[in-house]
Structure formats: structure tokens, C-alpha cells
């Protein structure tokens, strides 16, 4: 069965030649069929890649044998799976960037939508709302999440029944759909504040439900990376356990903890559904998260699209500008997380 060691194998030059001829054939086909109208570059490249693949596998089958031909075919398929996944990413980023710049101006960041019909206006009220709600959600989630992970790693050691329960429940929480978190916050607050309740704080509670499990998971992982020798050395010097955790364990893992928290914030800052449910939407500025509706950036994007006014293009432009702002915020948070994890990497000789 094994292919003979002296059997010829396709050299790199043959592969390159096949690639060039595949592209050339594809272009020829396009030029003939299009006859006059413009040639679609992307189409030529895709068809050219397909022809290149067929040629390579065919030639390989003829000279190298079936097994190597299959190997080449699968390598091609797997590589193109990756390439295929890049298409939506490129298309999405390109669309948001090109359509978003139309209204990515100073007015967008300095005015609200109050009394704005048609063009003009901005998303300042939504940006303020997003910042306040996310900040409150972070203030709720970070202590709870961090302390829970400290319990799981330092006290429960992941073994006793209670910590197994907590781990399972964190898993369940991870799977809560974001809209269900919104419904939960609504159900809870409407019991206290009557039906039809809308407030920014309730949105923050909904986001916390989504954020806490992410913080617990990432912090737990980071705390487990702290070598036991450090803890034992500290305890052996007579340092109490709580001080050991605060002065030895947490500083050692601070880079990872901050990174995890920033990624968790990036996750929830783009959440739309729960805020649509429980924070509602408004066109005016509202600084008070405990009173009345509060606009947020993701809801602003959705609302600009879904209820377009007379001048539809103005609403669409605002939606895309909002989307661009949102993506920039999320990317900055992700980038910041990477930088933090690099800067705060624990010192040591490993």
C-alpha cells in the first residue's frame, strides 16, 4: 500500500506553475463569458483557486498516487475552510468601517437625539448610558466573581461538595441566553417597582448575570496558575491565610485577573437584548440609572435601524456610526487586555 519512496513527488515549482495556470484559465473563462462587461476579481480568484485545486489533486493522483492526492485534497479543503471564515470577518469590518465613517463626527459624540428628526443628532446619550450601565455591572460582578474564584481555589480547592455545586451553577449561568437574563431583571424589578419598569440599574443587574460567570471562570483559571510553593512559603513564615491571598496570590496573578475582567467587560458592553428589555430606549439624555429609561449604544444601533424616520439614510448612517463606535470600544478593550497581560506578566525565571 505504501507509496514507493523513489516515486516522484510534485516540486514546489510545479505547484506554483499550476497555481498560475489555474488563475490564468479562470481569467480566460471570465473574459470570454463576461464579453465586454466588467470582470469580477473576487470571482476570478475563487474559480482560479478551485481550478488550481483540481489540477493539483489530479496531477498528484497521476504521479504520486491516491494517498498523497487525498492528502493534498484535504490540506486544500482545510485551508479553504479557514479562508472561508475570514470572508465574513473582512466583509463585516470593511462594511462597518466604510459606512460608519459617514457620521463618525464630532456632533455624533456631542449631542443626543432629543428633538432630532432626520439628519443630525448623535449618540452621546447612548454612550453615557452604556458607560454607566457597564460600570455598574462591573462593580457588581468583579467583587462577586473574584471572591467566588478565591473561594473555589483557596478554600474549596474544587473538591468539597459546596464548591462542586458552585462550579456547576457557574456553568449553568454561562449558558443563560442574554435575553433570559434581561427577562430575569425585568421580572425581579417589576415585582418591586410595578409592571412596565424600565431603568438603567436593572440593565446593569441583567448584565451582571452574564458577566459574573465569565469573571469566575477566568479568575479561577488564573489563581490556579499560582504555584503552591508561594503560598506555602508565605504560610510557613507565619503570614495568615487571608494576607497570603491578598499579598501573595493576588499580586502574582494580577495580570491574568485584569485581562480576564477586561475581556468580560468587552463581552457585555455589546449586549443588546437584555438592555432592550429592561433599560428601554429614549432619545434624551438620562444620567440617573435609577430612574426611567436609559439609552445604550447597542440599543441605539438597533433602534436607529428598526425605527427609521422620514430621512431613512440619516438613521442608517447613525446606526453604522454607532456600530463602528461599538466595535472600536470592544477592540480597544481586547487590545488593552492583551497589553495588560504582557505588561503585568509575573516576574520570574520561567
Amino acid at each position, binding site marked *: 500500500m505504501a507509496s514507493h519512496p523513489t516515486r516522484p513527488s510534485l516540486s514546489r515549482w510545479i505547484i506554483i506553475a499550476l497555481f498560475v495556470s489555474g488563475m490564468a484559465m479562470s481569467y480566460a473563462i471570465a473574459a470570454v463569458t463576461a464579453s465586454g462587461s466588467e470582470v469580477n476579481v473576487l470571482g476570478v480568484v475563487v474559480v482560479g483557486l478551485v481550478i488550481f485545486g483540481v489540477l493539483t489533486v489530479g496531477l498528484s493522483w497521476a504521479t504520486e498516487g491516491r494517498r498523497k492526492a487525498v492528502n493534498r485534497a484535504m490540506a486544500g479543503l*482545510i485551508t479553504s475552510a479557514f479562508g472561508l*471564515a475570514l470572508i*465574513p470577518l473582512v466583509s463585516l469590518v470593511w462594511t462597518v468601517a466604510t459606512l460608519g465613517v459617514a457620521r463618525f463626527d464630532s456632533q455624533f459624540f456631542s449631542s443626543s437625539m432629543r428633538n432630532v428628526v432626520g439628519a443630525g443628532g448623535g449618540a452621546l446619550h447612548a454612550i453615557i448610558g452604556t458607560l454607566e450601565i457597564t460600570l455598574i455591572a462591573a462593580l457588581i460582578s468583579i467583587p462577586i466573581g473574584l471572591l467566588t474564584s478565591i473561594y473555589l481555589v483557596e478554600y474549596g480547592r474544587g473538591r468539597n461538595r*459546596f464548591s462542586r455545586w458552585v462550579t456547576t451553577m457557574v456553568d449553568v449561568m454561562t449558558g443563560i441566553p442574554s435575553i433570559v437574563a434581561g427577562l*430575569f431583571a425585568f421580572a425581579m424589578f*417589576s415585582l418591586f417597582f410595578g409592571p412596565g419598569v424600565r431603568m438603567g440599574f436593572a440593565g446593569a443587574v441583567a448584565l451582571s448575570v452574564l458577566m459574573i460567570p465569565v469573571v469566575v471562570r477566568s479568575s479561577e483559571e488564573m489563581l490556579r496558575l499560582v504555584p503552591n510553593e508561594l503560598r506555602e512559603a508565605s*504560610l510557613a513564615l507565619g503570614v495568615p491565610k*487571608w494576607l497570603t491571598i491578598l499579598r501573595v496570590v493576588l499580586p502574582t496573578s494580577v495580570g491574568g485577573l485584569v485581562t480576564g475582567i477586561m475581556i468580560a467587560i468587552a463581552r457585555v458592553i455589546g449586549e443588546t437584548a437584555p438592555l432592550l428589555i429592561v433599560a428601554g430606549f429614549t432619545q434624551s439624555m438620562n444620567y440617573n440609572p435609577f430612574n426611567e429609561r436609559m439609552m445604550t449604544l447597542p440599543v441605539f444601533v438597533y433602534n436607529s435601524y428598526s425605527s427609521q424616520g422620514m430621512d431613512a439614510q440619516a438613521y442608517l448612517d447613525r446606526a453604522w456610526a454607532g456600530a463602528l463606535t461599538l466595535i472600536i470600544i470592544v477592540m480597544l478593550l481586547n487590545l488593552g487586555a492583551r497589553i495588560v497581560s504582557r505588561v503585568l506578566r509575573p516576574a520570574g525565571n520561567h
Partner: protein
Amino acid sequence: MTSAPLNASRPRRADRVFRGISTGAGVLILAVLVLVAAFLVIQALPAINPTAHIDAAPNGFAAFVGPLVFGTLFSAVLALMFATPLAIGIGLFISHYAPRRLASMLGYVIDLLAAIPSVVYGLWGIQVVAPFLQPVYQWLSDNWGFIPIFEGPVSGTGRTILTVGIVLAIMILPIMSALAREVFLQTPRLHEEAALALGATRWEMIQIAVIPFARSGLLSAAMLGLGRALGETMAVAMVLSPAAAVTFKLLTSENPSTIASTIALDFPESSGLDVNALIAAGLVLFAITMVVNSFARAIVTRHRDTMGEN
């Protein structure tokens, strides 16, 4: 741990306080989950009452939520069908094909897809993907319309359940391919080298050593992806033109709707018992995702037990 008796013999108040606080955080998480379930049930009960008259569900709650459950499952399964082969391909590419130095960067690029908010996917889906796919749908229906799922009349906007499936597939791709990559990277090196030493090509080595080892991990990745797709709200709400129909036709404008998107679309304008009906629908969604996720976890746990063989 040698420290345990020391701590036990000299309990300090600060220690006890700190331990209490962190235990309390754990208790709080349990409490939150119980509260989520409790509040949802309390608010859902009025809608499940058979004598209640709900404007949104004139024929009773079951008739209201049934088609939505169908739509939720259908769109999520469609997404999974597109995403699974791609995720396996991407995972293999990053773990076994890409140059090592490039691999971590490529993984980061895929992770970027996960960071994009779903409302942006919705906007992109409705403005870019749907118009792009509409002519394709027309062609499919014209040439393959004899297959029931491709039957016309084709939607003029492209905002069909198939478009939703494709957008959802793109959205669950990052998490699934990240998990697939992790599983593939855990393949014992010795298994891979043994296969290569016997003269296997790279693909044969993957068939012999990597795939069998990764099978359960891939299944659980698929389940987690399914769980994501089931609960996805905004992209579906924006892209789909819903009709709450129960149909397998992929290309028409009469599309089954999903639970999450129905809640998002109807909730802001609802009042009275309609709100309770939507909360009850949310409870159903919660139950479905919990079943799917716990199935995924069960697979992982079983997998972990058999890992000792290596």
C-alpha cells in the same frame, strides 16, 4: 497541606471574616440562579394558566410557543450544520497545518469574530448578507425548486431562515473553532508521531490519531455552539422576517420565528398578560438551552474520565 493544622489551632478573626466573605460570594451565585428561576416562574405562571386570555396567544400558550420552539431549534440546527465542518477545518488548520508562529495569531483573528457584538452582526446580516444571497436563492429555487425545502416563492429581500442560519453559523464559529483547536492540540504527540513513523500522510495521521481522540470534545463543542445559537437574539430579530410558520421551506418570506427574537421584537410594545406570555416563552428557552448545555458538560466529564488511558 501542612498549613491546615496551623490555621485550625490558631484561628484568626480576619481569616474567618475573609473566608466568610468569599464563601458568601459563592452562596450569592447559587442564590442568583435560584432567583432567576424563581422570578421567571412567578411571572410566567399567569400566562400558563389555561383560562387566561392572552392577546398575543389567543389559542393558548402552547399554541403560541410551539411554532417558536420549532423555529428556534430549526435555525440553530441549520447554523450548526454550516458551522461544524468549518469549525473542524479551522481547528485543524490552526493546530496541524498553519506554521506554528502564525498559529496563535490566526487564532486571535478568529477570536476577533467572537468579540463583535451581535447587533452589529444583525445590521451586517440585513444590509449585506441578505441582499447578497437573494439572487442565489432565486437561482436555487429556479433550478432546484423541485426539492421541497427550496420551493418558492422566493423572498424578495433575502431575509429568510436560511440567511439567519448562515449568520448564526458565522457567530458560533469562533467559539466552536476555538474549542476544536484546543481538543486537537491535546492529541498525544506520541500517537501522532507513531502514525507518521508508520508512513501515514498528514491527513491519514489526522484520521488515525487526531479525530478519534477528539471525537467527544468535538461533540461537546458542537453542543455549546448549539446552545449559543439557540439563545441568540438580535441577529435573528433583525435579519428574519418572521411569520411564526411551521415549515421547512428555506427560501420563502413565510419563516418560522424564534423564541428569543420574538421576545426582543414584541416586548417593548407589550403590556399586561402579553408580558407574562413572553416571560414564559423565555423560561422555555432557558430550559432548552440548559438541557443542551448540560448534555455538552456530561460529554466533557465522561471524556475527562477516559483521558487517563493515555
